[in-house]
C-alpha cells in the first residue's frame, strides 16, 4: 500500500518503518512533492488519528492545527500561529508537522524554546520526551528516528503570564520570517528570549536573559544593553531574504520590544 490511514497511534507506529513518510497537514511535504524534490514510496496519513488532535491542558497533540492554536493557544503561541502561512495553511498545517519539518524559520519554534517545551516521540518500542534543545539538531534536521512519530508537545504546567511573539517579514501576511522571537517574563523577573530564523535551529539568547533577569525594574539603558546582547548572540546568515547584519539588528530590536510589552 502506498498510503495507509491508521486511526490510532498504535496502528500508525506499526506502519512507520524505515522509508515510510508520515503525512500530517501536507503543507510542507506536498511542496516538496510538487517541486519533484521528494517522492515518498509509502506514506502514513495521520489525519484520521483522533488521539493526535487531543489537546489537554499543557499537552498539545501533534495533529492540532495552527487554526486551533490561533484560537485557543497560550498568548504568544497563538500570536505565532496567526502568522503561519495563510488561513488555508493554518487549517491544514499542524504543530507536529512544523516540528517534523524543523525549518529554521518555523514560526512555532521560538515559543517552544522560550518556555522549555518538550517534544514527545513514540515508536513501537516506547515513548520518549526530548527537551526542545535536544530535538532540533540543525537545518531541517531533528532527533526523530524514522520509526518515531511526533505525538505531542508538552508545555510546562504553568507559563509566564507575560509573553509575546513577533515576526519580521516584508509583507503584511503570509511571509517567511526574516526574524521571529518570543520573550517571556515570569513574576519573579526571570526573562526568556527565544529566536527563530537567526540560526540553524531556534535559539535562546542566554546571556541577554541572564543580564536582564537580574534587574527588577529595567531602565532604558538596561533595555538597550539587552537588545545589544541579543544581537550579539544570534548567528544569522545572509541569503536572498535578508542580510546577516539586518537579522542581527532585527533580532535585538524585536527582543527589546517584546520585553517592553512584557514589562507593561
Amino acid at each position, binding site marked *: 500500500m502506498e498510503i495507509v490511514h491508521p486511526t490510532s497511534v498504535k496502528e500508525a507506529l506499526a506502519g512507520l518503518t524505515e522509508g515510510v513518510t508520515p503525512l500530517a497537514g501536507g503543507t510542507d511535504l506536498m511542496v516538496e512533492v510538487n517541486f519533484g524534490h521528494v517522492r515518498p514510496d509509502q506514506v502514513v496519513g495521520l489525519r484520521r488519528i483522533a488521539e493526535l488532535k487531543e489537546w489537554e491542558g499543557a499537552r498539545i497533540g501533534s495533529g492540532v492545527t495552527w487554526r486551533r492554536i490561533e484560537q485557543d493557544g497560550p498568548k504568544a503561541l497563538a500570536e505565532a500561529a496567526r502568522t503561519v502561512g495563510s488561513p488555508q495553511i493554518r487549517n491544514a498545517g499542524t504543530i507536529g508537522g512544523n516540528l517534523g519539518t524543523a525549518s529554521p524559520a518555523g514560526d512555532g519554534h521560538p515559543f517552544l524554546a522560550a518556555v522549555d517545551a518538550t517534544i514527545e516521540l513514540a515508536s513501537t518500542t516506547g515513548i520518549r520526551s526530548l527537551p526542545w534543545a535536544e530535538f532540533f539538531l540543525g537545518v531541517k534536521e531533528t532527533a526523530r528516528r524514522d520509526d518515531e512519530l511526533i505525538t505531542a508537545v508538552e508545555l510546562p504546567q504553568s507559563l509566564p503570564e507575560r509573553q509575546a511573539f513577533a515576526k519580521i*517579514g516584508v509583507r*503584511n*501576511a503570509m511571509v517567511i520570517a526574516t526574524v521571529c522571537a518570543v520573550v517571556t517574563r515570569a513574576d519573579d523577573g526571570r526573562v526568556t528570549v527565544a529566536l527563530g530564523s537567526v540560526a540553524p535551529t531556534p535559539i535562546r539568547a542566554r546571556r541577554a536573559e541572564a543580564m536582564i533577569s537580574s534587574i527588577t525594574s529595567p531602565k532604558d539603558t538596561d533595555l538597550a544593553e539587552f537588545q545589544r546582547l541579543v544581537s550579539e548572540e544570534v548567528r544569522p546568515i545572509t541569503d536572498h531574504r535578508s542580510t546577516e547584519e539586518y537579522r542581527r539588528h532585527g533580532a535585538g530590536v524585536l527582543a527589546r520590544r517584546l520585553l517592553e510589552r512584557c514589562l507593561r
Partner: protein
Amino acid sequence: MTATTSRRIVAIDGAVGQSPNRPDGIPKLRGEFEFAQDLRAEGMLWAATVRSPHPRARISSIDVAPALAVGGVHACLTADDVPGRATFGLEHPDQPVLAGEEVRFWGEPVAVVAAEDEVTARHAAGLVEVGYEILDPLTDPAEADRRDEVFRRMRIRRGDQTARGAVVVEGSYQVGMQDQAPLGTEAGLAIPDGHGGVDLYATSQFVHIDQEQVVASLGLRPDQVRSHPTGIGGAFGAREDVNLHIHLCMLALHTGKPVKMVYHRSESFAGHVHRHPAWLRYRHEADADGRLVRVEAEVLIDGGAYASTTSAVLANACYFAVGPYRCDSVAVDGVGARTNNPPCGAMRGFGAVQVCFAYETQMDRLAAALDMDPLDLRERNALGTGDPMPTTGQVIETPLPTADVIRSLRAMPLPEADPGPHHSYLPGGSGLTTEPGQVRRGVGYAFGIKNLGFSEGSDDYAQARVRLSGEGAVVETAAIEVGQGLVTVLAQIARSALGISRVEVVHVDTSRIDSAGSTSASRQSQVSGGATLEAATRLRRRILARHDGDDLDDEGVWRGESLLVPWSSLADEDWTETVTFRHPPTTEPDENGQGVVHADFAVAGHRAVVDVDVELGLVKVIRVDTAQDVGLALNPASVRGQIEGGILQGVGLAVMEELVVKDGVMLNATFTDYLLPTILDAPEVEALLIERPGSWGPYGAKGVGEPPTISSTAAVVAAIRAASGKELNRVPVRPQDIALP
C-alpha cells in the same frame, strides 16, 4: 478627429461611458472559463522542458536516450530537431529555440520531451544527459558596456548643450528586477491538423507574432500555422515573447499528436522575460525660479542574454528620462547591456517606470535645493499640449493635461487617515512587530509620462471586423483579452457606433483576421477600439444608406416613426465591415534622438501615504491617491480596475518585489520568496479621472493600463523618504535600507 458623442451613446444599454458587467465574468466566477491551462484534446501528450542549470556553458553533448527509454515517452527534441529558423525573437531573432552550442542564461531550454502524462514527461526530462563545459558568465552590465556587449546604445541631444542653471542636483539610482508574475503560468496546446500544419492555443499577448515565429522556426507556410487567442491568466508584458509556443508545435508535428505543456511557477520565472533592472545617473539644473534649464541622464539597463524588446525598452527609458516636464537642454545616453543574466523585456510601463523613479527623486531634491514646494516646482515645469517633448523635440498634439493632473491631485482631500490600531494596518502586519507609537507617517508625490501605442516608425495597426448576426452584431478580433476588459470595451464601442445593444466580441485565430498587434503599450482600446469604431460606423452608414433609413436600433432600420426593416430580415443579408486602423505615423529618431517618435502620450500622478517603522525598516502603504489622464473613460469601472491593479504593482516594486539574481542564478523563483502584495498590503485608492477627450482613440479615449504603475513606485518611495529621512536611491526599498545606517 474626435468622433461626436451622440445622445444614442447614453441611451443604449452597455454603451461607451457605462460600466457593463464583463461577458466572461460569470464563467470565471463559476470556474468554467477555459484558460490555456485547462485545454485538453483526445490522445494528448504532455511536454516538459529540460533547462540549463548554468548561466553560461558550452554544450558538449546531449544524450536523449535515457529519456526515450522511459515507457510512455514519445519524443525528446533538441536544437538539431528544429526544422526551420534556429532562433526566435520579437525584434531580433537571436534566441535559440533550443540551445545547441552554448547556454547563455540560467534556465535556458535545451531539450523538450513529450510523454503520455505530465509526471512521466517531467521525469524523463530529468533524465536527459547534457554535458556542460561551464564558462564564466558575464553578469555585470557595466562590464558588458565596457566590452561593448550591448543590444543598443541611445544618444539624445536636444537644445543648447552648454546651458547651465544656478541650482544643480545629482544622483545615482537603481531599480531591481521585477517580475510580471501573472497568476496563470505559461501554458498551451498544439494540435497537428493532419496535413502538416498545426493549430496552437497558448498564453499570448500577440498571436500573430507568435504565428510568424512558429512559421519561421518550423519551416512551414504561413497558412499552415494558426494561432488561436486563448484564455490567459494575466500578462503584464510577460506574454509578448515566444517561450513554449515553438516547442509545442515541434512536438505536435513530430509525434502527430496534440501536445500540452504547462510551466510550473519556477519555470515561469525562468521562462519569461522580466522588467529590466536599471542603473541611472542624473544631473538636473534649474534657474533660481525653478525652471528646468538642463537635464542630463545616463541610463543603463540589463537586457540579459537575448534581445527580446530591450532596444525598445531602452529607447523608451531614454525618451521619457526627463518626465512630464519642459526642458530645452537635454542629454541622455542609454545602454542596453547584453549579459548572461535572465533575459528582460516587456513589463507594464516598459522603461518609463525605471526612469520615473530617478527623475521624480531628482525633482524632489531639486525642490529641496531651491527651497520650493515640490508640487510648485513640478507645476512650473509641467509639460502640456503644444510643447515639444524635452527629449525628442516632438510637439505634443493631443491633450496632455500635466498641470491639471498635478493641481487635481494636490487638491484631492488627504484624509487624516488613522487606519486604526489593528495590526493589519501597521507595518509588520500580523507579525506584530510594530505598535502605533512606533511609526512615522510620510506623504510623497510623483508624476509620470509614457507613450501610448508603438513608436519609432513601427507600422502599428489593428484589424477588427464587425458583422451582423441573427441576434445582433459580432466584433471579431485577434486582440488578446488579458483580463483588462477589452471584451467589454470593444462591445461598448460597437454598441455606441451601431446603435444596437446586442453586441458580442468573438476572438478569432490568425487565419481569419489580420493582426491586432500586441495587447501592450496601453494600446488596444485605442487601436483595436479605433478599428471597431470605424468598422461599426461604416456598417451602420451602409445599412442606413441601403434602406434609406435614418436610424438603426435593436428593432431594425427606421425612418421617422416607421420601422422600415425589422431586425429579422435585416440580418438575412451578409453585413460585414473589416477595418484596419492605423494611428498617426511615427518616425525613427535621427542621430540625436529627435523626431516624431511617439503616437500619443498619457500622464498620471500618485500621492502615497505610508507609515514607516523606521527602527525595523518596515513599511505599510496606507493609501495611494491618483489623478490620471484618460482622455475619456470608455468604461469607468474597468479604468478603476486598471488603476487599482497597476498601483499595487507599483507598490510591489517599491517595497517587496524583486527577483534576486546572483552570478546569473535566480535565487527566489517561487511565490514563497518572490513576494506579491496580499490584500493586507494593498493601499486604499482614490482615483480621479482627468477626461480631456481629443486623442485619436475612439471618442477621444486614451490607453489606461500602464500609467498607474509608472509613478506609483516613486510616490511610495518619496513618502518613505519623508517618513524616515533616508536617501533611498534604490527600489525595492528593503528593511535594511531604512533601518541600518
